Every structure is written in C-alpha cells, then in structure tokens.
C-alpha cells in the first residue's frame, strides 16, 4: 500500500494551469524525484504536498490519512528549500532545535537529537555558529538536519542543490542519498537536473506542462522513454522520422532503419526512431556488424567532453550525433567520411503526430 498518495491533484494560478490530474503513489522509504523543465509543475506539486498551496481538485493522502486540508504546520512534513531558509537570528543548534521546541520536546532530548542529526550531516563543529558564517553547502546541510530533527513522515527537497557549485552539488547529493537510505525516510526530490535525478532516485517522475510524462526507475526512463519528451529531455537522442513497415523496419526518406520489433504499431503509421548517441559507433571502414544499421556521412563537428567525444555527422542533410570514447577512435578530422553503425536493439520506436 502506498504511503504517500496523490489522486487527481490539479492546480491553476489564474488562467495558468500549473498541475493537472496528477496521480502518484509513493512507497514508504523511497526517494522519488520530480524531474522536468522549469514551469512543469514539479515545485507546485511539492508545495501542495507540503501544504503551502491548496489543490483546486484532488486529494493528498499520507499514511492513509487525507491531509489535503491540513495546515502545513500540522502535516509533520520536513522541507528543504533551494534558498536554505535558515533562521538568521539563530545559531546552527538553535535552528535545528526549532522544530523540536515547537513540539515541546523536553530540553535534554532536544539537545541530544539536534546533536545527533548534526552529526549525521557531518557538521558537529558548527553548532554555535550563525548561518551567515557558513558556506552555501554547509547551510544546506544544516537545513537538511533541521528538517530531519523532527523525524518527519515525509521529507521534501525543493531543488536543494541548485544554488551550489558543481563539486559541492555532487558531494552533497550523495550525502542526501546516504542519509535518506539510512533513515529510510520517504522523500520527494524536485530537480530540473536530469543527472541529479537519475543518480539518486528510486523512481523518477518526469513532468512536462503540468502532467506526468513517465514514472519509472532511472534506468527505465533513460532506456525506455515513454514519450518523445522524456527521450529528449533526459539525455540526448537522435530522432529519425519515418513510417512503420513490417513490425521491425522504419522507412525514412533517405534510408531505412531496422529496429527491435514493435508489434503494436500498424504499417504506414508515422513514427519516430530514437537512438542515443552512445549507442552509435563510428567506423572509418565499412565493416558493419551483421544485422546493424549503417549510415554514411561527413564529420561536421567534433566536441570534446572529457570521457567521450561527441561527433556530429551529416547524414543526407540530417545531423546525427555519436559519442565516441577515446579508445574507440583515432583522431577524427572535420569533413572526414565516416560510417555510423548501431544495432536494432538500440532503437526506440514511438508513434508521432503528423
């Protein structure tokens, strides 16, 4: 049975629909990310779970109890904000103790629990400092500790790392995941950063324009995107428009692509074939593996990304990108004729509107 349950939740601000028909079940102890571009409704949904926004329709259930009309201070939900929102007039320890004080927890217990969470976020030495004396990453650790100190039923994180440097971001997200797993606390994590969502989540909810595009494990949303939006928002995908033919072939203008079987799409239907750049191999010679697709063209762009080099090839007027590891390639020069190959298994076929 789901621990946190959203049923048909809708929210509009004036004439702008922020969230429509949002239904999701979150199991206890899981970390679920809401991922999408800005304005997709992910933060609004989170704020409705927190109680800062009232849904226009739908219900929110927590542990079987309808909390839709419960005010935010009675929901027992911890929240971490992008802006940290630490109380500037209080020391770190006072900040962390605040929630316990509001619950009239005995003094001794308050102190010991505050110290415990402070230790959990590895900030033991900062108890007496004020927020303005801490770095952004440290402040967010304290904010996390403050939210955890009251042992909330659900932890909500609203783009918690967006204001931090890349290095701190990566370190802190691992910390968040570690603490979340240790405490087995049900967590909703809002982010627009796909890498972040894929790396820390049990489940990813991909959102666009107020609706859910796909719910799945990080591997699922990356490898088997349900919609074209998911395929292009998460990672990069080459898109080939064509028509379905024979259940495993797509006919494009200039070439044909052999794909894995797609039985449910009838022949003649307009489809799009999506192929990830890392699935495509670059070959100078024409040694195409048996059963693989092959496309030929001239190299137009070469961009070095560190671990891989992204090569853009002009295939009959369409730009196709392929990620090549250093080991797999000699130096590639612009204008060079190359052969791009990829297996049918790497092709994702989906219907498209004309």
């Amino acid at each position, binding site marked *: 049975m789901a621990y946190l349950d959203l049923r048909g939740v809708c929210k509009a601000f004036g004439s702008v629909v922020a969230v429509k028909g949002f239904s999701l079940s979150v199991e206890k102890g899981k970390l679920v990310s809401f991922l999408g571009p800005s304005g997709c409704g992910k933060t609004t949904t989170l704020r409705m779970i927190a*109680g800062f926004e009232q849904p226009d329709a739908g219900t929110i259930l927590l542990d079987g109890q309808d909390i839709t009309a419960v005010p935010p201070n009675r929901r027992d939900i911890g929240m971490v904000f992008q802006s940290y929102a630490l109380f500037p007039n209080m020391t770190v320890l006072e900040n962390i103790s605040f*929630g316990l004080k509001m619950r009239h927890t005995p003094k001794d217990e308050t102190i010991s629990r505050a110290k415990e969470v402070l230790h959990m976020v590895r900030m033991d030495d900062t108890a007496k400092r004020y927020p303005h004396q801490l770095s952004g990453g440290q402040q967010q650790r304290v904010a996390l500790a403050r939210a955890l100190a009251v042992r909330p039923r659900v932890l909500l994180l609203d783009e918690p790392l967006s204001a931090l440097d890349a290095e701190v971001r990566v370190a802190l997200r691992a910390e968040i995941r570690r603490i979340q797993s240790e405490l087995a606390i049900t967590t909703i994590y809002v982010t627009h950063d796909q890498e972040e969502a894929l790396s820390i989540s049990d489940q990813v909810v991909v959102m666009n324009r107020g609706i859910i595009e796909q719910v799945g494990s990080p591997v699922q949303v990356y490898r088997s995107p349900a919609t074209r939006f998911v395929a292009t928002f998460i990672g990069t995908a080459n898109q080939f428009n064509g028509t379905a033919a024979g259940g495993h072939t797509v006919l494009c203008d200039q070439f044909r692509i052999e794909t894995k079987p797609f039985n449910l799409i009838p022949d003649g239907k307009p489809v799009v074939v999506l192929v990830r750049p890392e699935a495509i191999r670059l070959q100078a010679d024409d040694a195409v593996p048996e059963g693989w697709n092959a496309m030929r063209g001239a190299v137009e762009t070469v961009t070095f990304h560190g671990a891989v080099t992204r090569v853009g090839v002009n295939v009959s007027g369409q730009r196709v990108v392929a990620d090549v590891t250093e080991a797999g390639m000699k130096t590639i020069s612009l204008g060079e004729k190359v052969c791009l190959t990829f297996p049918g298994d790497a092709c994702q076929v989906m219907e498209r509107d004309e």
Partner: protein
Amino acid sequence: MKHRASAIQYAVILLFLSYMLFPIAATYIFSVATRWDRSILPEGYTLEWYRTALQSSYFLSGLRNSMIMSLASVAVSLLVVVPTVYWVHARLYEAKPLLELLMILPFGIPGVVLALALVQVFSFPPLARSPYLLVGATVVFSMPFMYRAVGNALTAIDVRGLTEAAQSLGAGTGSILTQVIVPSIFPGIMSGSLLVFATVFAEFTLAKLITGAAFKTLPLLLVEYTRKNGYVAAALSVISFTLAWVASLLILWIGRTGRRSAQETLRSR
C-alpha cells in the same frame, strides 16, 4: 588626478556637514549668549535663558506630554504596522501596491488638512480634541517611517522562505512572528521606532490644531517662546534636541540589550 578627486570629495563632505551642523551650532551658542544681534560673536555668555526655560511652569508638563505622545505613537505603530507589513510581504503580495500608495499619502496631505479633517470628523467625546485623537493622527503621520524601515528589513530577509520553513517545522503564526521574523528584522524595527519617536517629538501642526492649549507639547511651548524671547526659545530647542538624542540612544541601548538577552535565553535552552 586621484589626489584631486579626493580633495573635491572632502570639500563636498565638508560643505554638507557645515550646512547640516551650522544652524544647530548657532542655536547652541545663541542659547547661552547674553546678546547676539549686533556683533559677529556673542557679547557675553550666560545660562540665564536655561533657568527661565526650566522654571517655566509649562516646561515639565510639555516635556511629559511630548514623551507620552512619542512613546504612544511608537507603541501603536509597532502593533499596527509591523504585523501588516509582514503580512503583505509573506502572504498578500497583491496588497503591496495599495500599501505603498497609502504610505505616500501622509507626505502628500498637509498636516493642517489632516488635523482639521480629524477634528471635524471626530468631534464627539472622548475623542474630540483629545490626546487620543492626537496619537491617532501622529501614528498616521509617522507611519511611512515605520513602514519603510520595517519593509526594507523584511525585503532583506527571505520572508516567505523563513515563514514556510518555520511552518513546516510546526510553528503557528504567533511563533513565526515572535521567534523568527521579529528577531530577524529587529534593527529595522528599532530604526523605525526611532524615526517615529523623533518625528512625533518635534511635531507641531497636529498638536497645535488638535489639542492646542489643552495638551501642550514641547514644540508648542517652543513656538510660544519664539514670540516672547528668542534666547529662551533657543534654550528650549537645545533641551528638546538633546532630549530627543538621549531618548534615541536609550531606545537603541534597550534594543541592543533586549536582543542580547533574547539570544542568551535562546542559547541557555
């Protein structure tokens, strides 16, 4: 080049300071001069005018009345303005333009107009020409100062974020205001209180037209003396000015120790 620029800067600052300080200094000197209207420097020095001023039967009552007015205005202003400004910043952004407009009105409406209108409308007891009505008027008149000071302090902190963070931790509106918001904007509240205090302490028009002789404040007394004896009026100005300064410092001091003790209580928990 740089040297010259800084010389010009100093000249500008010096000019500004003398512009500000010259009248005050002149008043101070005038208040201890035996006579200063025929020569560049006073003809002699005396404390006679202070004796006259302090011996006036109205002096103490005027001082007391001015203090009551100022402190009452600060108190009412704190109770009315601070929660309002918080509300507008935290929840009701839509009302902000309206409030901004309202806060310009006291500058636009002359004191005479406000006073006469109030006297006309509230012509019944116990309000008619009473100190209560005067406090109401001075609060309105000095409201922009409190509003600006508190508003700026609220803008400087993340009101919405802090409010929501406190809410998610289980705090109700009362706790949020007293434990999070007010301590965070304390300097703004202090400077607002100071401005209100000083404005009301020196207020003449409203006091003259609303209560008049029935409730004489220090500025009324001062104006009376300018007609009788300029030297005594100068002495009164100096006293009033000094008192306003002392009161301001006192408020600042109370504020600082208050905040420190608040922090200490928090820490000891």
